[in-house]
């Protein structure tokens, strides 16, 4: 009789076994996910220093592995912050190690994107990954790494140091991965295009295995303010977090405790809150009983007068950059954007930014083209499940003089310290009332503007058509009547044509 064995597995092991969660479902999805994770790390690394990102991605074929999958070498270079040499092995060789567990808006959502890619590559090809990085100081460090999956530890195969003569700063990641580029290609190209749309200050270059170059040039060097780390907002606090805060706090009374550990809680708010919850301001936090902690948490959620979280932990694009990005990638005739004020759901701040674009190079289809983004990441799957899709389709567009057969693109961007994804796949935003309301408000705002545009356009078109009719026929009338009357000289009709312009000269 064998005893049931309980085996502890490492984080690496867990994620390898559950690689679906991180998007590495199949060969075509894996190659897409690997590119995407590394590009997003690179964008974050550049943005954190407010450097205009320059990212170069090359995927080259390394021969056939099996019938369905080829082996590719993926190389991603950036001009970001670089990684200090002592962190490099762990940053790429240890799952769930990283800089993404603090409260600010960043792209990566698992803290394992890059590592997962390296891990997946290693399992499939048994080849080490190469990481070259410099923070712009004297040296450049190069590591050849593998992951010890069982122990979740990096194995350093090789380490080199170079003199950084040219003061290069950035990170280069290169590793081997099995995948199916041909099948992944449409999504990969779409990913680059949409990434370029919400990162108009970035240069993106992609060379595919056939040697084709895709380049997305920046149109601005303006960048959004990088997000700041922030304290937790009272609405987002649970018992567990509160206990940890009490454990670490040096504050001697509840009033100071509230003021120092929570986001946007000042003296007045703290006092009002304590009065509201019937707790004494002078109570020592560490003396709170378990029941009192529970009461505190409940009241933190109930109290209506906390100020909403400010947006400093968020880094929305802003109206100008959103406009520039849409203009650059979609080349529409008209565009209008709207950024909502910060709002919160369950204590997590978020901002909705939306844009609507009409005409130009936007193709005419039978439905609106919807572009969805979360923290500047394009969401390419499960559109119909997304809250914005529902909101967009619930609107009576006729009221706004808009119909789905028009060449219209709608862009929706949510940024948050915690994007309310519905599923682990992280491809669509869940239908939370707070989020839905903000999306609806933003949409109404831009719809009203597009309605004005449509009315004006209609008007201008009608007017242009009207004038063109006179300009077409009056000369003919002059021609025919001159012949018929047996005259030589045509009457001058310029003044008549000019007089039909009701609304002045057109632009």
């Amino acid at each position, binding site marked *: 009789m064998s005893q049931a064995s309980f085996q502890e597995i490492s984080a690496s092991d867990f994620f390898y076994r559950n690689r679906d969660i991180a998007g590495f479902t199949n060969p075509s999805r894996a190659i897409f996910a690997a590119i995407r994770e590394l590009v997003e790390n690179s964008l974050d690394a550049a943005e954190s220093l407010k450097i205009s990102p320059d990212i170069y991605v090359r995927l080259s074929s390394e021969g056939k592995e099996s019938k369905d999958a080829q082996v590719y070498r993926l190389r991603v270079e950036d001009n970001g912050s670089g990684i200090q040499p002592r962190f490099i092995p762990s940053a790429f060789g240890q799952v769930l190690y990283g800089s993404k567990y603090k409260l600010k808006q960043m792209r990566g959502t698992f803290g394992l994107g890059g590592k997962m890619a390296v891990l997946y590559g290693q399992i499939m090809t048994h080849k080490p990954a190469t990481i070259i990085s410099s923070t712009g100081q004297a040296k450049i460090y190069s590591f050849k790494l593998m992951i010890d999956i069982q122990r979740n530890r990096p194995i350093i195969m090789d380490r080199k140091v170079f003199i950084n003569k040219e003061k290069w700063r950035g990170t280069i990641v290169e590793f081997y991965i099995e995948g199916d580029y041909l099948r992944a290609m449409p999504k990969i190209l779409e990913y680059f295009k949409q990434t370029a749309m919400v990162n108009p200050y970035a240069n993106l270059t992609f060379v595919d295995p056939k040697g084709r170059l895709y380049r997305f040039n920046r149109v601005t060097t303006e960048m959004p303010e990088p997000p700041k780390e922030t304290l937790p907002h009272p609405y987002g606090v649970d018992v567990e977090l509160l206990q940890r805060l009490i454990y670490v706090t040096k504050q001697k009374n509840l009033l100071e405790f509230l003021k120092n550990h929570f986001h946007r809680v000042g003296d007045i708010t703290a006092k009002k809150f304590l009065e509201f919850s019937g707790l004494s301001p002078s109570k020592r936090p560490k003396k709170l009983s378990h029941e009192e902690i529970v009461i505190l948490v409940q009241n933190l959620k109930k109290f209506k007068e906390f100020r909403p979280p400010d947006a400093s932990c968020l880094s929305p694009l802003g109206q100008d950059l959103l406009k520039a990005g849409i203009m650059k990638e979609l080349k529409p005739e008209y565009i209008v954007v709207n950024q909502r004020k910060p709002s919160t759901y369950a204590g997590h701040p978020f901002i909705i930014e939306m844009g609507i674009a009409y005409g130009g190079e936007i193709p005419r289809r039978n439905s609106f083209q919807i572009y969805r983004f979360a923290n500047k990441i394009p969401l390419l799957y499960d559109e119909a499940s997304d809250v914005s899709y529902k909101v967009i389709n619930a609107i009576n567009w006729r009221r706004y003089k808009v119909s789905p057969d028009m060449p219209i693109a709608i862009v929706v961007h949510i940024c948050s310290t915690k994007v309310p994804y519905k599923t682990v796949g992280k491809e669509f935003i869940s239908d939370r009332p707070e989020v839905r309301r903000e999306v609806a408000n933003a949409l109404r705002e831009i719809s009203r503007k597009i309605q004005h545009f449509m009315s004006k356009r209609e008007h201008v078109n009608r007017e242009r058509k009207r004038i063109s*009719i*006179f300009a077409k026929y009056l000369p003919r009338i002059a021609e*025919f*009547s*001159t012949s*018929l*009357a047996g005259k030589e000289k045509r009457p001058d009709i310029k003044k008549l044509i000019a007089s039909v312009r009701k609304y002045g000269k057109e632009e």
Partner: protein
Amino acid sequence: MAKKNKSKITKKKTEIMGSLKKLGTQIYDQLDSGVFPTISMPSRSTENINYDPNLRQYILGEKTVTRSARNIRHVKPFTQLAWAALFSNELTFHRKTSTLRDVYYSAQAYNMTFKNQQESNNIITDLETATGHSREDFHIFPEERSAVFGDLTIGYTVPGYEGKTLNLSSHPDGVLIGPALTSSEFVKTSANKVIAIEKGGLFTRFIEEKVHSKHNSILVLTAGQAPRQTRYFLRRLHDELKIPVYIFTDGDPWGMHIAMVIISGSANAAHLRNLNTPDAKWSGVWASDIVKYKLPSDPLDEVDIKRLHELQRDPRYQGDPLWRKEIKTFLKIKRKAEQEAFSRYGLTYIVDEYLPTKLKQTS
């Protein structure tokens, strides 16, 4: 006689071209003085179409409409009208003829397009209304399908045929009623009546059975609703030869109305004169004939009955009590019969028995 004829034609031509030039000059002068040109003409809307019991035809009333090139909805038809005037002027000047279909296509050569034939037809009607001349005066004719047969010698006036003559009994299918025929002079005839027939089958039968000689008649095939120039031709036969016109149609409301349009004209041509023959007679097939001759007949359907009620209210049917009587009979027996129905009595019955009786009855 030829000389006199020629001067008459020249006079007509000068008159037509004069009125077209007047129209052109009017437009030119308005443009030249810096105003949007306008053209006024009698309104052809239904409320301006009145029946004139003295003329015994429809005429246009006092109401006029003004087409202005300032109006966005008018400027295109206005241009088309100016073009049509110019085109008619050229046709008249060169003495060339054209058809309504031809007008529609000719416009394209001038970079003027009409949406469809109906649109170009309407513009020609506008031109008729604005100038008071019929399109035939401008040498524009519809496509032809009606014919004439009988002992009538005509003298051509069209270019190239001046002085030539033709006897209309020289071809057994009949002679097409076209511009050359309607503009010809009537030289000689032995006929003492005109018989107009609705259908080609009966027209041929009449020729075979020598109705023209048996009854000293000129046979005219209207081929359904008589075209305008056929109506004009009938009028000329009646007026110039001073002989009566008898009309034979199917025994149904539609046949009855074919006869009525020959007699009293149509609302569509209310802006024109001399297209109707007020003294012409409808000789059959009457509703009462269906009863009297026990003709094979079909039941009237809904549209027939609806049409009969319309005709009952039509002012043209208020004159001769015959019409109202026949309408009542139709409504009573609720049957209709075609001219061919007489075949039940043998192929020659209609010619030998029915026709003489009816001619007598209606003369």
